[in-house]
């Protein structure tokens, strides 16, 4: 077993509303990423994927608050640290985060190289401009970005190029963990592929050691990550390898998600895409039992009464359902 780079134990974070209500958008989430591995997080809009991404950085600002649990990056516990310390010593150096609209981070009045200077000098104020330029040029060339980009203004770059520039900048200090939150959703297929290739290069060339990739595009997740976790209403409902999760899901929610995949492959037109009825529960007062019960096809009366934890299904798989795995599989088979 290789070294664990990121370990999260029972992390819980909450939002505080105007009326002082607490909303637990990330509810006892645990995960472990080993060196050189990538974990994907899937789920509907509003299930807590992006909040989890923000929480994993250990950098909390209102209305998001830390509540309990721990985040261990390469043996160092960063949960509960002072936000200022986190910003100075963790972000960019240990953990980097790229949001969906990363390209908007570029300052339109600054050249790309000035933006990179800002990033590096915020962490290492003594670095000279020449050193920074050399480092940036080397890194850009390694990642297949032309070095001319450094001298350009953001308006001179295309959307995909801007996104790649910001990703390259965010990992310029070689952080251990990269959290990518829908990095390619705003792009078309070709630019998406270039962005993904770059993120894969970061992993293969050892610039980052672990990757957390968040998206609702399941075919993309399947192709990018080793493991997939599915989130629903702030909780993890199932985890396993990408292969298992896509072709052999256990939890009814995962199965429903996999039923909504659209890929241009023969046979797609013959299947009727399954939509999940209803909407996710309001986390202000989450249901007492299983949170998916209201939308589940296989719901039983006891589902609404007892809330179950993650159940182990062997080989690192786990699912959160009161119905045992064999019974679920039988139900799927009889359904066809």
């Amino acid at each position, binding site marked *: 077993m290789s070294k664990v780079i990121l370990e999260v134990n029972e992390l819980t974070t909450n939002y505080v509303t105007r009326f002082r209500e607490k909303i637990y958008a990330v509810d006892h989430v645990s995960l472990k990423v080993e060196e050189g591995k990538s974990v994907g997080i899937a789920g509907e809009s509003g299930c807590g994927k992006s909040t989890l991404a923000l929480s994993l950085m250990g950098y909390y600002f209102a209305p998001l608050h830390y509540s309990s649990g721990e985040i261990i990056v390469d043996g160092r516990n960063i949960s509960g640290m002072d936000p200022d310390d986190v910003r100075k010593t963790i972000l960019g150096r240990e953990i980097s985060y790229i949001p969906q609209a990363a390209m908007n981070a570029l300052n339109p009045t600054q050249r790309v190289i000035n933006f990179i200077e800002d990033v590096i000098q915020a962490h290492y104020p003594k670095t000279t401009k020449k050193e920074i330029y050399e480092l940036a040029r080397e890194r850009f060339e390694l990642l297949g970005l032309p070095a001319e980009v450094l001298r350009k203004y953001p308006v001179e770059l295309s959307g995909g190029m801007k996104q790649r520039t910001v990703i390259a900048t965010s990992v310029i200090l070689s952080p251990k963990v990269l959290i990518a939150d829908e990095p390619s959703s705003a792009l078309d297929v070709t630019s998406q592929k270039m962005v993904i290739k770059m993120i894969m290069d970061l992993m293969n060339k050892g610039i980052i050691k672990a990757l957390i990739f968040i998206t609702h595009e399941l075919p993309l997740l399947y192709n990018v990550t080793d493991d997939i976790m599915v989130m629903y209403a702030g909780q993890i409902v199932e985890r396993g390898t990408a292969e298992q999760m896509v072709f052999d899901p256990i939890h009814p929610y995962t199965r429903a998600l996999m039923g909504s*995949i659209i890929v241009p492959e023969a046979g797609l037109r013959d299947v009727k*895409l399954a*939509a999940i009825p209803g909407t996710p529960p309001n986390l202000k007062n989450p249901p007492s039992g299983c949170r998916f019960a209201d939308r589940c096809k296989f719901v039983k009366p006891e589902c609404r009464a007892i809330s179950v934890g993650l159940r182990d299904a062997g080989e690192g798989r786990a699912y959160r359902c009161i119905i045992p795995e064999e019974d679920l599989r039988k139900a799927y088979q009889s359904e066809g």
Partner: protein
Amino acid sequence: MKDNTVILSGRGVTKVFGFGANKTVAVDHVDFTFRKGEIISIVGESGSGKTTLAKMLLGLVSPTEGEIYFDGELRDIRTHKKKREYWKNIQAIFQDPFSSYNIFRKVDAVLLDCIRMRGGGNLPYDEKLEMMKRACSFVNLKFEELTNKYPFELSGGQQQRLMIARIFLLSPKILLADEPTSMIDACSRATILDMLMGLRNDIGMTPIFITHDIGLAYYVSDTVYIMEHGRFVESGTADQVILNPKEAYTRRLLSDVPKLHEEWDLSTV
């Protein structure tokens, strides 16, 4: 449901932006024939001219060259009155539903406007209510919960569904859907697509999808047009184009999409 009446067609439709050295040919002499009840997809990357073409079909942008025929006759939208008449026949859904609503108007006002546009302004209120309820139930929304809300209080999926309820009330002959699901997550996408296809089956509408998602195009459409640099490079039935692409460009588009049963080759970027 597909008959052979041509509902919309174009000959040599061209749009040029700018002139002289700054000339950009966004749409370059395209010919097309859309038949009634046929689901059409126009697939292309950003900058291929698909949105410009959509705007020309809608009459928001006038073509530099070429003719567009609607219902067998040359389309005439030179006056504002004629344009309004034309828009009764063609309606659109855009990528961002929120930017399509008037933020000061509540949901029922949005729907009542549609009834008025169809000439139902003088109907008794009960009848209008009945129509609105029917439209909402078509898209699985509860009318009672929505009436007193503003569009921003709805989720993205609900807003897009309300947009479809509008279309249901207006029942145009053609519906142009410009990236209707790219802002919606994968799970509600199937619902939206099924509703749009339901519109065709229920009121005989001709939906035209403009998208960069070739998987979506394959799932929904009868006929697919692939667009590159303002031209249609390939067209045919969905099975022909997606499963047996002839053009190199179509093959490249297909190879750029992550798939489940095929290796995604990242080396060909």
